[in-house]
């Protein structure tokens, strides 16, 4: 259970990114945090992961504790990457096994194999391959809380679908997951709930079942709330061709 009440966050340059954010997430729920670029999605994820600290005395509570107190139970899978450039995937796995008590080396190796990753230092890999190392490492931590910041970056459609299938097949239903992505289509039938950030605040917080009962898709909701259309850059490309 994650509880957030009246959370504010301001960066040291006085740029306020989040204001009055309140919501709670029961154990096992899969939540998409969406919004335009700069809406504060990544900041919110970093706060939940304990990588940033909220303004004032407000604290995020995860099972009654602060994120920092249970950091070993949170996996943060990020576009930026948390791996070490000089290590090979397997050496990185050995490092993680020492650090995370529940690290599942067999599962990690299985995922590396599944993604077709070779043993060479991460710095020699493509962007897509690096993202796969990041995902395999994050999932193999087998933590009850998983935070995914743009996990699909650098992956083609088939890899995205393979990944969704691997993810669906390996979750137990006990994991609480927060995910941000621009690949809305991949998560339409996967997430339980959508929270859209706009102008530093929550614009809407709705379960997928409620959304469907209103006859809307996540894409339509995004368009309605923030005028966002997935892959709208294609029309831009068409015009500049």
């Amino acid at each position, binding site marked *: 259970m994650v509880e957030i009440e009246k959370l504010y966050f301001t960066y040291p340059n006085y740029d306020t990114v989040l204001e009055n954010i309140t919501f709670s997430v029961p154990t*096992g*729920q*899969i939540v998409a945090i969406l919004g335009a670029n700069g809406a504060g999605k990544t900041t919110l994820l970093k706060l939940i992961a304990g990588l940033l600290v909220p303004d004032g005395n407000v604290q995020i509570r995860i099972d009654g504790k602060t994120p920092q107190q249970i950091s070993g139970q949170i996996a943060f899978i990020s576009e930026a990457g948390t791996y070490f450039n000089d290590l090979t995937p397997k050496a990185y796995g050995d490092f993680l096994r020492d650090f995370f008590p529940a690290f599942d080396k067999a599962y990690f190796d299985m995922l590396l194999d599944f993604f077709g990753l070779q043993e060479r230092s991460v710095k020699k890999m493509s962007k897509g391959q690096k993202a796969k190392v990041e995902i395999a490492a994050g999932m193999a931590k087998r933590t009850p809380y998983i935070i995914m910041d743009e996990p699909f970056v650098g992956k083609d459609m088939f890899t995205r*679908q393979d990944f*969704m*299938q691997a993810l*669906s*097949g390996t*979750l*137990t*239903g006990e994991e609480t997951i927060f995910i941000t992505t621009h690949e809305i289509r991949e998560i*339409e*039938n*996967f*997430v*339980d709930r959508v929270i859209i950030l706009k102008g530093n605040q929550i614009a809407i917080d709705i379960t*997928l*079942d409620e959304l*469907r*009962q209103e*006859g809307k*898709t*996540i*894409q339509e909701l995004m368009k309605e709330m923030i005028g966002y259309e997935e892959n709208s850059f294609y029309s831009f490309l068409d015009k500049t061709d």
Partner: protein
Amino acid sequence: MLDFSELVLNTAEPVYAQINEFVKRKIFLGKVKKGDPLPSRRELATLLKINPNTAQKAFRALEEAGLVLTPKNTVSILYFDEELLLEIQREMTADIVAEFVKKLKENKLSFDEVTVLLRQEWEKGEKE
């Protein structure tokens, strides 16, 4: 085993409702029989790329609808009695007719026009 690989999920209805509808349709078309086993929740989640809680919810909805039994420590199986089968048949047929009539009304057709067209179409099918 009940094969869900033909189920293509849309983004218009809740996933569990689509799974429920898929099973009902299989029963209606007589493609499955009482006692057929279902995949496990995890197998269903993996196949449809949905999250395990949604698969769980779909099973619960099927059990509540009286279409699936999950005996202790074993796989879930399809189960329905005659009464439920009749109800599904009524529901499926009524749905088609309701949708059909709605579209005809949208196209501003009268009942008499429709009966003529319906008879033509029906008989055309029989001649072929």
